[in-house]
C-alpha cells in the first residue's frame, strides 16, 4: 500500500512539469483530487486526501460510517466547498468552473432525495430542463433513461407512492438524464431488497461503458462484484487504493488448506507433513472423518498433492479447499489498523 501511494505522489509531481502532459493527464483522469481537506469547525472530516480516477473506471469508495465518504462525494459534486486542496473533474477545477463541472456530473445523494409530490415523468422533465436539455433532445433523453432504468410502468405515478427501489431508480434516472461523463453515487444500494439490489447493480455495471462511476457502499461483496478499483477511506484519510483482488492479496497471510478425509489420522498427518511447502498440520476427529488443516508457505498450492496422496492411499476425500479471505477481511483489518488495534499490512 505504501508503495502504491508513493508512486502516485511521484505521478503528481511530474504531472505539472509540462502543459502537454497535463493535457494528457486530463484526458486520462476523470477525477484528480490533490490534498483535499475539509474541516467542520475543529473536526477534520477529510484529511489531506489525494486520489485519481481514470476515465471509464468504476471505483468503489469504502469506509466505516463517519469516515468522510459522503463529505468527499459532496465536495466532488460541488455541493460543499473544501477547506483546502485542488480537485479537477475532466480537467476542470471544480471551484472555478463549477457550472461546467456540474453539467458533466450526475450525482445521486445518500437517501435519494426527490420531490415526493411530483409524478416521475414530471420530475424527470423538470430536472432535465434544469440541466439545460430542451426540445427533442429532452424528450429522447427522458425516454431513454425511463427505458434504461425500467421506469415505464411507473412514469405517471406520484414519487411519494413508489417503493424504495423505484425511488432509487428515479434518482439514478435523474443523475443520468443529461448524459454526464461522471456519475457520483452515494450508497446507491442501501435499503434495497435482494432483487432490487441485483437490478441496480446490473444497471450500474451497464453504465460503465459510457460513464466513469464513483460509488460508495457498505456492502463489500458489491464492490468485489462491480468495481474495478477500491478506495478505502478511514478517519478522513485514504488508507488503501487498489483492485479488490490485489487488496485481498495484500493482507492474505499464509494459505491454509482444509481437508476432510477418512482414514488413519496419524498416518494422514505424517504424510501431509512430508509435502513440501506445508509448515504445520493440525487435525480434529469428526466421527469417522478427520478434519485436517494444513498451513502452507506463502505462494504454494498443495491441493493437487493432497489429492494425489489421498488417491494413492485409498482414503475417501469429501472436502479440499483453500481458505479464502475476502474484501471484508481487508476492510476490517485496514480500518481496525487505523483505529490502532489491527494487524499491520506488511
Amino acid at each position, binding site marked *: 500500500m505504501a508503495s502504491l501511494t508513493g508512486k502516485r505522489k511521484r505521478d503528481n509531481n511530474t504531472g505539472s512539469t509540462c502543459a502537454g502532459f497535463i493535457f494528457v493527464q486530463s484526458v486520462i483522469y476523470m477525477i484528480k483530487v490533490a490534498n483535499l481537506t475539509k474541516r*467542520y469547525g475543529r473536526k477534520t472530516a477529510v484529511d489531506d486526501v489525494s486520489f485519481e480516477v481514470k476515465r471509464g473506471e468504476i471505483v468503489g469508495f469504502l469506509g466505516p460510517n463517519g469516515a468522510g465518504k459522503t463529505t468527499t462525494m*459532496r465536495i466532488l*459534486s*460541488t*455541493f*460543499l*466547498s473544501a477547506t483546502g486542496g485542488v480537485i479537477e473533474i475532466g480537467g476542470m477545477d471544480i471551484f472555478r468552473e463549477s*457550472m*461546467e463541472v*456540474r*453539467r458533466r*456530473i450526475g*450525482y445521486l*445523494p*445518500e*437517501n435519494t*432525495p*426527490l*420531490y*415526493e*409530490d*411530483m409524478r416521475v415523468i414530471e420530475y424527470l422533465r*423538470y*430536472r432535465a*430542463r*434544469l*440541466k*439545460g436539455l*430542451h426540445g427533442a433532445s429532452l424528450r429522447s433523453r427522458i425516454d431513454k433513461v425511463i427505458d434504461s432504468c425500467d421506469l415505464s410502468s411507473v412514469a405517471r405515478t406520484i414519487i411519494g407512492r413508489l417503493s424504495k427501489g423505484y425511488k432509487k431508480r428515479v434518482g439514478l434516472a*435523474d443523475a443520468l438524464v443529461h448524459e454526464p461523463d461522471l456519475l457520483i453515487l452515494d450508497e446507491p444500494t442501501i435499503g434495497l431488497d435482494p432483487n432490487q439490489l441485483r437490478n441496480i447493480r446490473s444497471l450500474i455495471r451497464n453504465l460503465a461503458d459510457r460513464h466513469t462511476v464513483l460509488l460508495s457502499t457498505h456492502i463489500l461483496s458489491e464492490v468485489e462484484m462491480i468495481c474495478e478499483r477500491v478506495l478505502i477511506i478511514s478517519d478522513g484519510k485514504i488508507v488503501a487504493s487498489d483492485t479488490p483482488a490485489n487488496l485481498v492479496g495484500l493482507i492474505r497471510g499464509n494459505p491454509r488448506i482444509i481437508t476432510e478425509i477418512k482414514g488413519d489420522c496419524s498416518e494422514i498427518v505424517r504424510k501431509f507433513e512430508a509435502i513440501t511447502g506445508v509448515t504445520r498440520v493440525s487435525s480434529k476427529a469428526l466421527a469417522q472423518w478427520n478434519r485436517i488443516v494444513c498451513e502452507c508457505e506463502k505462494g504454494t498450492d498443495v491441493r493437487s498433492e493432497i489429492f494425489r496422496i489421498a488417491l494413492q492411499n485409498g482414503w475417501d476425500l469429501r472436502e479440499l479447499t483453500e481458505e479464502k479471505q475476502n474484501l471484508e477481511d481487508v476492510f476490517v483489518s485496514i480500518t481496525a489498523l487505523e483505529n490502532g488495534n489491527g494487524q499491520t499490512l506488511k
Partner: protein
Amino acid sequence: MGRFFNIWMRELGICFLSPIAYVTMVIYLGLSGWAFMQGVERNVGSDEPLQILLLASLFFLLPILVAVITMRLFAEEKKSGTIETLMTAPVTEAEIVLGKYAGAIGFLIIVIAPGVASLFLLALLSPAIGITDIDMGALAAVCAILLLVSALFVAVGLVVSLLSKNQIVAAMAGICVNGIILAIGYMESLLPMHAGKFISYMSIENHLLDFGRGSIDTRPVIFYASTTIFMLFTAIRLLGLRRWR
C-alpha cells in the same frame, strides 16, 4: 432564463399539488370576505371609502398568509435533502432564489385576486352601490400597495425559510419578523420628533392609508422595492454561503 422559468413554474405548480394550498386559500378568502362584509355593514352611512375597507380586509391576514406560503420554500428542500440535487444541478443561486420568489409571489397573487373581486361582487349584488361607484384609480392604488407590501413580506419569508430546516419554525419566525416590520410604524408616537418622523416614512399603515385614498407616492414604492431587492440579495448570498459551511 430558461432555468429560472423552469424553477418558477415548478414552484407555482407545486402549490396546487398539496392540499395545504387549497386549505389556505379557502380560509384566507373566507376570513377576508367576512371581514369585508363586516366592514361594509358597520360603516353604512359613513364616508369611509369602500376600497379602504377592502384593503383592510385583505391586509389583516397577509403576514400569516405569506408565512404559510413561504415557509416551505427552502425549509422543505433542506429537510428532505432535495437541496443537494438542486444545488448540484447547473443552476446559479440567483436563479434558484428568484425562481422560488417568483413562484411564491405568483401563488400569492392567485390567492389575493379573488378577494379584490369581492368589491365588484358587492356592487353587483347591492342596490345602493353601482359598478360606477367604484373608484378604479384608487382600486389600482390599493392593488399596487398590496403587491408592494407582499413583495417585501415574501422576500423576508424566503430569507427566514432559508435559515431554518423546520417549516413550522420558518412560519413562526416569518410571522414574527413581518410583524416587527409592521409594528415599526406604530413606534412613531413613542420616539422623539425627528426619529418619529423618520419612522413614519416606514409606517406600513400610513402607506396603506395613502394608497387607499388613491394617492400614489413614489417614496414608499422606492422603500419597498429597495428593501425587497436587499432581502433577495441577502437570500442569494445566504444560499451561496451554504457551500462554505
